[in-house]
């Protein structure tokens, strides 16, 4: 578990003068434009160079090559810095506006990045809300161990809503296909009610799935936890409004605008420790529905499914019985970044059997209150 030990922080992640890729620009100071009898203050006048692409510097060019002698290098945030800034603003705003928020933490990479951003948002104060894990009972043991270590290291309060408990006492029934991801909704909603959480941070990203692509950053849920995608609240500028009636709550997605590649580049940049199964390792697996499933207590090969030892890693972690591994030799963050950048499949397409059930599986689950 060396990954969990060393932590290297970039000295000044935000302050490095981020070069703009070679573009000439002529921006006149904004002046009110007066037409006829009325004034509409309006925008900068821009002149567009016709062949910007040719002016592009190669990626290896040293930072010094970007700035010009006469002009101070423009202060522009890099993509990751811009995403980080937006996410931190969202986390702070919701924490300030709501009384009892909680952060969904599964130990998966997206929730880990979200938690890392929350640490930055409140530093040096501790995160001022608890984390909530909706435990399917079908977890990878490495992920549970990672979850507990992280909670311990950051001094967080962990609440667990257990799907297994619901199945044991009959409130939920196991599905025919055995997957428990869709079963998380009821325990999640009950936990929200029980703890009177008025806002729940989730690590959902818009690039994951087409229904998620429609989500607001701050998204209202009615008293039944339902999402109404046809009647979403407007979300303007960076002014977030989580107000709601008693009984309703909001789901908040601070990393909405991050892609899988952004997540991995950020994990690499910030050196964020992750559960080891995200990195290449040998594992006993068998093939089902075109995916490599791990051999484990809840995922046993059926007749005709052959167990093999393969070098694999996980792109997502979820219910072990239906989350597939991908064959990969990528053992470091840098190698994973390169692999994700070259991937021809989405992470869910590659690894989630439950998303393949129907075209609108995710939308339907989200409408019922799923994360």
């Amino acid at each position, binding site marked *: 578990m060396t990954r969990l030990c060393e932590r290297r922080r970039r000295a000044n992640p935000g302050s490095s003068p981020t070069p703009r890729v070679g573009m000439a620009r002529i921006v006149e100071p904004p002046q*009110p434009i007066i037409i006829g009898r009325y004034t509409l203050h309006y925008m900068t006048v*821009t002149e567009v160079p016709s062949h910007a692409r040719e002016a592009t510097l190669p990626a290896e060019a040293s930072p010094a090559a970007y700035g010009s002698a006469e002009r101070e290098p423009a202060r522009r945030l890099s993509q990751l810095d811009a995403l980080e800034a937006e996410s931190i*603003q969202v986390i*702070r705003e919701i924490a300030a506006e709501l009384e009892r928020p909680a952060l969904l933490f599964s130990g998966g990479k997206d929730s880990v990045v979200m938690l890392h951003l929350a640490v930055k948002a409140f530093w040096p*104060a501790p995160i001022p809300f608890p984390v909530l894990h909706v435990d399917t009972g079908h977890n990878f043991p490495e992920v549970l161990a990672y979850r507990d270590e992280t909670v311990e290291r950051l001094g967080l309060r962990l609440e667990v809503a257990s799907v297994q408990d619901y199945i044991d006492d009959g409130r939920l029934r196991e599905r025919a296909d055995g997957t428990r991801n869709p079963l998380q909704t009821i325990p999640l909603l009950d936990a929200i009610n029980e703890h009177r959480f008025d806002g729940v941070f989730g690590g959902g990203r*818009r690039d994951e799935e087409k229904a998620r*692509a429609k989500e607001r950053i701050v998204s209202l849920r009615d008293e039944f936890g339902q999402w109404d995608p046809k009647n979403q*609240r407007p979300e303007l500028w960076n002014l977030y409004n989580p107000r709601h009636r008693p009984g309703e709550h909001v789901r908040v997605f601070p990393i909405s605008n991050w892609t899988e590649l952004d997540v991995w580049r950020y994990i690499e940049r910030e050196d964020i420790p992750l559960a080891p199964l995200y990195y290449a390792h040998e594992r006993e697996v068998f093939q089902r529905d075109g995916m490599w499933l791990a051999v484990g207590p809840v995922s046993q090969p059926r007749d005709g499914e052959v167990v093999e030892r393969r070098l694999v890693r996980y792109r997502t972690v979820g219910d072990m019985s239906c989350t597939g591994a991908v064959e990969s030799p990528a053992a470091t963050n840098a190698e994973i970044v390169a692999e994700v950048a070259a991937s021809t499949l989405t992470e869910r397409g590659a690894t989630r059997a439950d998303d393949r059930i129907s075209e609108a599986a995710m939308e339907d689950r989200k409408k019922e209150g799923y994360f």
Partner: protein
Amino acid sequence: MSTTTTPYAAGLGERGLLRLATAGSVDDGKSTLVGRLLHDTKSVLSDQLAAVERVSRDRGLTAADLALLTDGLRAEREQGITIDVAYRYFATATRSFVLADCPGHVQYTRNTVTGSSTADVLVLLVDARKGVLEQTRRHLAVAALLRVPHVVVAVNKIDLVDFAQDVFERVEASVAAVARELGVAEARAIPVCAVDGDNIVDRSARTPWYSGPALLELLESLPPSEDVEAESFRMPVQLVIRPQGAAVSEEHREYRGYAGAVAAGVVRVGDPVVALPSGQQSTVVGIDLGSSSLPEAFAPQSVTLRLADEIDISRGDVLAAAEGAPTPTQDIEAVVCWLGDADLRPGQRLLLKHGARTVQAFVRTLDGVLDLDDLHAVPAESLSLNDIGRVTLRLASPVPVEDYAVSRRGGSFLLIDSHDGRTLAAGMVGATLPSAPPAPIAPEGDEDFDI
């Protein structure tokens, strides 16, 4: 652990984000164009494309309907329209893009306002056969009011007018006339065929008379819109950070920081700042981002500032450069895009959110609504859903607003229903509507005369 980056990753790290929103009337081809942009830049992964092809085939189409890449809701697919904004992401060698594909239908204008409010560039689609429609005008008015920094006009379905230059030029001229009336300084037009991809990523051989750039070329070359160097520093305080409890280490027991997102300008250690509305001054002694200390911060970074003096600052206050700080006011004149289902009337009480502060607001007067036919303000008793109107508000306590024309973040606000929390309006401080029938349109290149 290895920390070397691959050349690809290193190249990615240096790019900025450009946020693009689509607009235009229903069925003008916005979603198809976004799908085309994604498809032709090889940004669609094979399982997504396979899913879209499968659905298209099931519907008896011969080619993949690329609009399905963004029209992801069941109801959207049933009706073949966009209902709410879909966000998609793609990158080229020089830029990363956030695409917000907005609906065209008038009923969903509030979603288009949502998508446009954060856009750096609005791509306005116009059907070459239909030209400028009411929604075209409404969306252009919204773009003008929101001051979306760049507007690009895609004259679409050019295939259906046989790639005729004169049709393109007629549409281009009529959009330009509306743009000029609304004060949009630049609205460059491109003839495109979204279904086939003409002039989207590559220049088309079917429009030999058009010598300008393809859409992607233009998007890649747009200059960044904000110039933080030219702005004066502002930061609404979201939280006061005072670590408490046993877990806090000795060195941070005395920590007191003001957390927020820089809304405008640059702040450096040593800068004098003023807290608003109190007017108390202090000096910045530290800027923190997580556990690292920075010598300076600029918009839109999220940071925590430490000050030399223990002055009274709480959530909702604004920290501003000591020089030229705005004067807090209780009286606001503004243009609002009304997004509520129930009408807005004078005398109403609402909440107003500006930066990190929410105050009560009273609607004193309604000073006019934009008539979308001839693009000027007419008197009105009330504002209905999707109306653009001018209002005068009285606030329960002073707020340091600025003209939206000067600062997008400093001049924008929300109106909120205090009972159920609904967001009712997008407001722009100090914006105006054309107040009389428009004067005859000035000829091109002649619009800088003063009256």
